[in-house]
């Protein structure tokens, strides 16, 4: 490979570095590597990549890595390790896994073949089970899997196929060939992360990405989306992605995929069975759902027929599938093909069903349910890794790792032998293999690390489509058998490198960018509920911050105020207390009160707590918020948590946060699709602002208000300038009341909010068909009339109190009317007892 220098050309700058990296690269003995082939020479694609890479100055390389990391952080690409509560930032390896096109074609052909084989076997198992009756496959290899769903026996899959998406985990064997390590047929994860990895890396290395002729992944996603849509039995189908919810380890991925594919992100509670169909609860009532792409395991799909304790499913869903009323992808029960017990039978099944041998081998596996295999495993126990025959843990042994008999104590070894003798069906012995390695960038040099490549196949009407690329997980330990995204592992983008330029139509870098589609149809009730509360939390945070600022500012300006100002300060303090922002008593220093109201974690009404509540709510809305909007909220929560030093810091933190809140409002106003829930965010904000403004007015424009009080009120509702431009006198009660409560032109007045609420409610669908005005609208219209016809001279403390009560009633009625199935609704429960 150093021959090029001798051709008389000036050596490329990256050349020498690559030679150095190659020399320093310590391949693990006896293990295949992606960068350096079996014969010790670097593979051609890698040389090309590293030469271009090496042409960058070290500082530039670091800058690009930094930009990739920044993007991940800003886009909020996260996952959660099992047992953890906080999200982790996605750990992306900066070096992609490179595979050249000719090798990829072999992988692609093998995965296509395997997907087709598994689909055929599933059709037989849930159909007339000829493979079982003929003895080609022992019944025990199937019956032991908890994913063999008896309820699905004899049910034809709606939409015509069992597997809409299939994934194979691959590694390179010691002989240099690719091997299948495992099959994913239930609900393979990683597609959405693969998409994000591509997005990030193609941005950080735009020039490299272009010059390397990397196959684009976007056409795969389009084919996948179109096939799912086509599987429905009507023209404009509604497709949902069923997620276990924000507590799922891969919720971010569910949101990414839903947004990218234009599907509704739904949870079990959002769906209801009615008639022989599945419906989604929306703000316009129940709407039929045609296709459900599930990320919920099959056994959790229906508490009525499957796992009774599941809270993730939809009661009655299985019966709808039985009646061909909804396409569920993958078909419930497909997960049975993940059982290791099946592996040993696949080569002969391939011959039998496809008439050809398997194109790619898998790890040699002995299923102990068969006498001969069991005897062999027991005889050469130390030569095997013992695994559960149906996935998951090894029965009788803790944890999820395989059991290595050579490492067991004599007692444990006997226990294992007895278990295999009694219940051989539960165990497989697998040949001991080590994962092959791929280079990672480690402090300025390249180092080999074990990896697993997950390749995705989508079932389309024209056969299987393979994603050119995939999801690559890399272990941080040089010695690894399995890689999960737990602690220490990282992910890598996978570049399939073509010999020629990839088709021009997909050459634009924008092709792989997230394509935001308009989410069709009505907003699901839960999303609307969350949007409404997101609006309310943010507006309440704003009001609280304004109070904090008002509390702090006079302290810095001793010239202002005096005895009367003290009274105003007490009013502010009292408000912060009733809102749960502070627990300090009235004799405390205002500065301490302000600091607590700003960032106490114990106070549910502190600005920090409110912003965190908003963030929590926004987490369930990931697929509906733009990355910018998401970023504003996360930054706000992070920054507010930093402890402030003194009064000045309190004021500047409050002011900065107010600016961020304004920029979020601006983003929502300018960027949010009006059809998809924006109204509910707006309604939440308007309702909360109307309530808070009325409360401010009741406190600071009460019948006994001083001019200091009125002055504070004008500041709180941001009306100082308007007031001064309109009146040449200092603050007086009636004009201030008019401006703050009744003025329809003042965007901060109560009347303005109520008018906006009226407009929103009027544009929402009626749920009843009797032509009568519904309750939220009745309340809103009545409120508007009283404000439109009201006069400042008629306003008193008492009437302000009544107005506040009416506004609270209106906000509640919106919740009851549009989100009857929201978080507070009663959920279905099981009948209990030994009936």
């Amino acid at each position: 490979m150093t021959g090029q220098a001798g051709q008389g050309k000036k050596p490329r700058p990256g050349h020498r570095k690559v030679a150095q990296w190659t020399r320093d690269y310590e391949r693990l003995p006896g293990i295949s590597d992606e960068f350096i082939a079996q014969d010790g020479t670097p593979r051609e694609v890698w040389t090309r990549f590293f030469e271009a890479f090496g042409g960058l100055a070290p500082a530039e390389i670091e800058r690009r890595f930094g930009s990739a990391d920044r993007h991940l952080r800003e886009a909020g690409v996260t996952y959660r390790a099992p047992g953890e509560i906080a999200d982790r930032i996605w750990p992306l390896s900066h070096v992609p896994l490179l595979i050249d096109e000719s090798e990829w074609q072999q992988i692609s052909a093998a995965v296509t073949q395997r997907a087709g084989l598994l689909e055929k076997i599933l059709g037989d198992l849930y159909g007339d089970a000829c493979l079982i009756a003929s003895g080609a496959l022992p019944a025990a290899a199937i019956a032991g899997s908890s994913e063999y769903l008896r309820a699905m026996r004899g049910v034809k899959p709606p939409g015509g196929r069992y597997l809409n998406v299939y994934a194979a985990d691959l590694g390179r064997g010691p002989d240099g060939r690719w091997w299948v390590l495992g099959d994913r047929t239930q609900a393979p994860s990683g597609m959405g992360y693969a998409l994000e990895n591509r997005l990030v890396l193609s941005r950080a290395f735009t020039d490299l990405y272009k010059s390397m002729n990397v196959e684009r992944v976007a056409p795969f996603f389009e084919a996948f989306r179109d096939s799912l849509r086509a599987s429905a039995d009507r023209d404009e189908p509604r497709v949902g992605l069923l997620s276990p919810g924000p507590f799922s380890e891969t919720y971010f991925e569910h949101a990414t995929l839903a947004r990218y594919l234009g599907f509704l992100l739904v949870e079990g509670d959002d769906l209801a069975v009615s008639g022989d169909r599945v419906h989604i609860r929306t703000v316009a009532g129940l709407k039929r759902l045609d296709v459900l792409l599930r990320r919920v395991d099959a056994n959790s799909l229906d508490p009525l027929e499957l796992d009774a304790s599941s809270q993730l499913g939809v009661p009655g869903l299985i019966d709808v599938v039985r009646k061909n009323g909804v396409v569920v992808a993958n078909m419930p029960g497909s997960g049975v093909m993940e059982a290791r017990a099946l592996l040993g039978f696949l080569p002969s099944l391939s011959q039998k069903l496809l008439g050809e041998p398997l194109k790619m081998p898998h790890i040699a596996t002995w299923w102990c349910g068969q006498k001969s295999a069991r005897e062999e495993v027991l005889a050469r126990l130390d030569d095997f890794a013992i695994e559960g025959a149906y996935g998951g843990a090894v029965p009788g042994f803790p944890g999820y790792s395989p059991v290595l008999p050579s490492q067991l104590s004599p007692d444990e070894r006997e226990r294992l032998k007895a278990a295999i003798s009694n219940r051989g069906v539960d165990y497989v012995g697998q040949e001991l293999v080590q994962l092959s390695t791929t280079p990672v960038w480690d402090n300025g040099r390249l180092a080999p690390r074990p990896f697993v490549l997950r390749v995705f196949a989508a079932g389309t009407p024209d056969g299987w489509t393979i994603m050119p690329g995939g999801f690559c997980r890399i272990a941080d330990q040089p010695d690894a058998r399995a890689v999960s995204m737990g602690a220490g592992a990282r992910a890598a983008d996978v570049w399939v490198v073509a010999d020629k330029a990839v088709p021009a139509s997909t050459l634009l870098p924008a092709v792989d960018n997230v394509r935001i589609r308009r989410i069709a149809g009505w907003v699901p009730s839960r999303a609307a509920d969350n949007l409404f509360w997101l609006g309310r939390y943010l507006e309440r945070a704003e009001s609280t911050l304004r109070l904090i600022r008002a509390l702090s500012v006079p302290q810095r300006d001793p010239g202002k105020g005096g005895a009367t100002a003290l009274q105003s300060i007490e009013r502010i303090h009292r408000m912060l207390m009733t809102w749960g922002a502070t627990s300090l008593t009235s004799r405390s220093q205002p500065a301490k009160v302000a600091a607590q109201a700003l960032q106490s974690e114990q106070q549910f009404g502190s600005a920090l707590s409110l912003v965190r509540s908003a963030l929590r709510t926004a987490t369930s809305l990931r697929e509906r918020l733009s990355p910018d909007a998401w970023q504003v909220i996360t930054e706000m929560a992070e920054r507010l948590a930093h402890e402030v030093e003194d009064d000045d810091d309190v004021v500047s933190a409050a002011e900065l946060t107010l600016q961020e809140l304004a920029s979020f409002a601006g983003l929502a106003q300018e960027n949010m699709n009006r059809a998809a829930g924006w109204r509910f965010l707006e309604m939440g904000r308007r309702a909360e602002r109307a309530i808070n403004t009325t409360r401010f007015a009741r406190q600071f424009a009460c019948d006994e208000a001083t001019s200091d009080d009125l002055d504070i009120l004008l500041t709180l509702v941001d009306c100082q300038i308007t007031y001064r431009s309109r009146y040449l006198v200092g603050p007086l009660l009636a004009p201030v009341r008019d401006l703050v409560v009744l003025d329809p032109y003042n965007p901060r007045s109560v009347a303005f909010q109520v008018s906006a609420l009226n407009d929103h409610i009027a544009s929402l669908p009626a749920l009843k068909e009797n032509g009568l005005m519904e309750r939220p609208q009745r309340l809103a219209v009545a409120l508007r009339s009283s404000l439109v016809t009201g006069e400042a001279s008629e306003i008193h403390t008492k009437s302000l109190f009544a107005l506040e009560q009416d506004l609270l009633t209106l906000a509640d009625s919106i919740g009851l009317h549009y989100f009857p199935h929201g978080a507070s609704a009663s959920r279905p429960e099981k009948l209990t007892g030994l009936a």
Partner: protein
Amino acid sequence: MIYEIRHVTTYSYESPVSYARCSLRLQPNSSAGQQLVSHSVDIKPLPAARAMRTDFFGTPTESVLIETPHRVLRIDSRSRVYVERFAPGRGDDSPAWESVREASFDSNDLSGASPIGYVFASPLVPIIDAVTDYAAVSFTEGRGILAGAVDLMHRIRTEFKYDPKATVISTPLQEVLDKRHGVCQDFAHIMIAGMRGLGLPAAYVSGYLRTIPPEGKERLQGADATHAWVSVWCGEELGWIGFDPTNDILVENDHIVLAIGRDFSDVSPVDGVIVGARKQKLAVAVDVLLLE
């Protein structure tokens, strides 16, 4: 023998239930040793929809949808069943239990009747070493499957205390084993778990017992409610044989089979989800009369 069975299930709720979706397994099957003569189920309030199907295990299962708000759900099932069954003697010859295990592992049938469906852990019956060890005492090397199962059944009857207040549906198996008490459901689950731990096929049976015993015989435990026992696959020739560990008897003409499954969760006579109840109370009344 012909039995007339009345089985009334009543759920009372603290607050109105607006929606209920239930699965009923109340129709006795016509199967080996028994024949259904007549059957009807009355439901109050009147359901919006009722549909009958046969589930994987061959049990007639009725899906019921109720959309009328109600505080009481009453399901009144009446059946008439002809029973004529022959049980083997407790001491009869049978194949060695190890060979029964191997035969079930080699099964080439995936249907509900296949022994292989009853060898594995199921939702309510995990395989626990302690339970397996308990059962292993009855299955010495080369012992006949029938003799082993009879011995295990007898040990459960003598070593466990029948106590209707001791357990609820969710009592874990380990606790039943530790405290050595429970009801018919627990004893059935213990026997099933122990046998499956050894790789032997054992199924859960729900059904009824005749209420008034034949003259000169004692009244059987569990006769005033639905009963549960175990069906063991004893090899190709003997097939499935019923063992009632609560009463230490082989199942013959005093038992009426309602449904067979892997455990209670497959055969629950009344199962469902409801919306709205804060608290629920269940009452079950069973009456089994011998007509002739």
